[in-house]
């Protein structure tokens, strides 16, 4: 059906969609309560893709940065390893209370690599100078959350440890210029052990290869500047094949699964990092994402018959940005922020290096 309307990217509508719950969110957002920094990141970085950060006043931007910093774990005087592992940023405010120094409650506010990662990225996107980040402790938390096998725990309470948190740890180290805090060899080893027989990368060794974990693995290697050396040329060749084969119209995350909007980002970005994105069929990919655009409410859904959500809106837009679409900012393929935000980060790095802060 030549429906012109469904093939056009409705930028203004998506800006509205991303902006609408930035400060006040409806009841059903309680399902995201534990991960508000991630939700916030989708909104802010999504607006950045749409080149629309100017819909926020500078006061609002500052307010958001203050809020993020209010979720940074407070320093305890005693600095033993167990305490340091809890540093960084937390997600849920379940145990945040006013004027209360209750020891039991504050013990539940522990940092989480995914939240630290989203918080730092959002700060950079908003133009913050990261001066209020407790850099050393955050990096020490990353250091002490690394496992024997090279992977990283998400936090001391969650017990999850897989490729997602390897990626979060690498971005944190990249942003805070702290690769010296972690064991790079072990990290590389964990990633290469998770390369699967079919060429893709799993969340852990032995687990099925998956679009999301392939991105996390490859982006991590790229950020460590190890992409050219960590994997063999055969591994690289097989991975490229596996990634390219994920395209059906849009992309699927695993063989024989349905196409899903977010994999236009996960797979697309991985191909982009590996210099292979030009071999994707752009037209099919573009149309597939746009089919999931809701032309009434704005936003994107996972597939054309499901409800729109923030994650798929964000990754749908990101996926589109790889194909030079007018109105979308150029995005960094490994850091999950815009090139504009990346330039800001570079300025900060230079600044802190010359003042030998970092």
């Amino acid at each position: 059906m030549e429906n012109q309307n469904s093939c056009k990217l409705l930028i203004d509508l998506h800006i509205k969609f991303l902006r609408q719950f930035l400060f006040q969110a409806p009841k059903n957002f309680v399902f995201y309560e534990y991960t508000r920094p991630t939700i916030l990141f989708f909104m802010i970085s999504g607006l950045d893709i749409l080149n629309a950060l100017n819909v926020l006043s500078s006061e609002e931007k500052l307010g958001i940065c203050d809020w993020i910093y209010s979720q940074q774990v407070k320093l305890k005087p005693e600095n033993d390893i167990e305490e340091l592992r809890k540093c960084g940023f937390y997600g849920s405010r379940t145990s945040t209370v006013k004027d209360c120094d209750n020891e039991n409650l504050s013990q539940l506010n522990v940092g989480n690599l995914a939240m630290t990662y989203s918080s730092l990225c959002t700060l950079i996107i908003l133009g913050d100078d990261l001066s209020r980040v407790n850099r050393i402790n955050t990096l020490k938390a990353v250091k002490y959350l690394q496992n024997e096998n090279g992977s990283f725990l998400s936090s001391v309470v969650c017990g999850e440890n897989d490729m997602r948190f390897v990626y979060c740890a690498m971005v944190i180290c990249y942003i805070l210029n702290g690769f010296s805090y972690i064991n790079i060899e072990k990290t590389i080893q964990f990633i290469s052990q998770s390369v699967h027989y079919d060429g893709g990368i799993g969340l852990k060794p032995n687990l099925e290869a998956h679009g999301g974990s392939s991105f996390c693995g490859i982006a991590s290697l790229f950020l460590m500047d190890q992409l050219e050396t960590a994997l063999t040329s055969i591994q690289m060749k097989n991975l490229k094949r596996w990634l390219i084969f994920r395209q059906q119209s849009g992309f699927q995350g695993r063989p024989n699964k349905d196409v899903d909007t977010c994999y236009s980002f996960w797979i697309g970005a991985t191909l982009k990092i590996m210099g292979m994105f030009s071999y994707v069929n752009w037209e099919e990919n573009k149309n597939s994402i746009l089919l999931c655009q809701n032309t009434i409410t704005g936003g994107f859904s996972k597939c054309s018959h499901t409800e729109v959500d923030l994650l798929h809106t964000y990754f749908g837009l990101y996926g589109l940005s790889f194909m030079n679409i007018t109105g979308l900012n150029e995005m960094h393929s490994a850091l999950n922020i815009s090139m504009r935000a990346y330039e800001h980060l570079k300025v900060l790095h230079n600044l802190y290096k010359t003042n030998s802060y970092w």
Partner: protein
Amino acid sequence: MTPERLEVAATVHIDIHLMESFAHVGQCENLDCQRKCCVQLMQVATHAKSCAIVKAENRYKCHLCRQVLALCAIHLENCRNTKCFIPFCIRYKKCKVITNEHRRCRNMSKGSSFEIRVGFSKEEVINFRKFRKFVYSQIFSLKKMDDNSSDENSVEEWILYKNRPEWKDIESIPQDDGPYPVVSINYSERYSDVFNYFRGVVAKNEKSIRVLMLCRDALTLSPANYTVWQYRRLVLKHLNSDLKEELEYVADVISNHSKNYQVWHHRRVIIEWYGDATNELAFTEQMLQIDAKNYHAWQYRQWVLTTFKCFQNELAFVNEMLKNDVRNNSVWNHRYFILNISEEGFSSKIISEEINYIIDKLQICLNNESVWNYLRGILLHCDSEIIKSKIVNFCTELYEKDHHGDHSVHLFAFLADNAVETVENKTENSKENIKFALKLYNDLALKYDIIRISYWKFIIQELCERYSLEIEI
């Protein structure tokens, strides 16, 4: 129109234009109407009609029908045309009456209640409500977001903690969102109440049975809240609670939230404490029956297998799973995993058996990427040319037979890659093999795998450069 085109036509988002075309289709009595919308929508609608006749209860599962019925539901709101052709339109008009049982009795003038009862099963009415919900969620998702979440809609009456005398001793502590809240959630009264008391007990460091109940209420409202899960574990440990009961509880939560990392992690910790994983394989099997590709379930199963060393019957389980769905990539992965950790490993006996198994499965379904990938995995461990030639011969035969119809992209790719590999390993005449590979890659690029044309051209170019050949595409 090909089925794919139909699908595209049907999945285009419900927008105003589409609704207008739909209305036109409903009124257009010209069966040869050449208006594009008419031709296309009529075909989609015809599909829905015939599909529904075959099996009414499957309608909601059929992706195509779902789209049409969604359109029907909106259309219905405005359609006053009693002769409307839209499939289900008239039927659902009546159906709508049924949902308003009481008003129906009063308002219905004609004695058509008999017809209604004949026309609609209870299931159809339920399905219709689902469709409506789906449609409204598409269009009014913003409005809907502020409705009560389903977990709070339970029929039983809920008493707030602040009104429960037995909780009088606990201070209700509100959450602090700071002076400038961001993504500030409009919590329901029940949510705030439960979490105020959660903070109350944490502040007092109370670890008691009633706290377990409170955690349960909190997790019903926010199942991924790892803070609550963590505190729950502290209480369980402190009380030395009955872990069997906890396992039942978490099984229940997992079946409702099977894609949530926290719940699977909780189960794992409880099993570690419990020390007995006898039921865990059966449990994951149950979860896999709901979603056979659930990554969490497979990951958990791998953990159980390696931790408790209980893989005796695992290969039989895999065979059964592949019988159900030979295209389930997770199961193929699991098969590889089991062989990989088994004592025997990839012995030449195992490899040879696996090759036979693969040939079997390829005969069921040739265009199944999972098997082809698995084959590559198995061949990684194979250094016997005899075993390898068996599968290569099988493929070559297929290729030579297959000059018409179903060309498998994966078959072509496998043979081409294999030809290149034999040259690289210097086992065979190079020129012939490279030529053969080029032909296959070319066919993929231009005929059988057009979506990847740029990629195959890239492969061809690379190959030609490596062997200093002229590129001809």
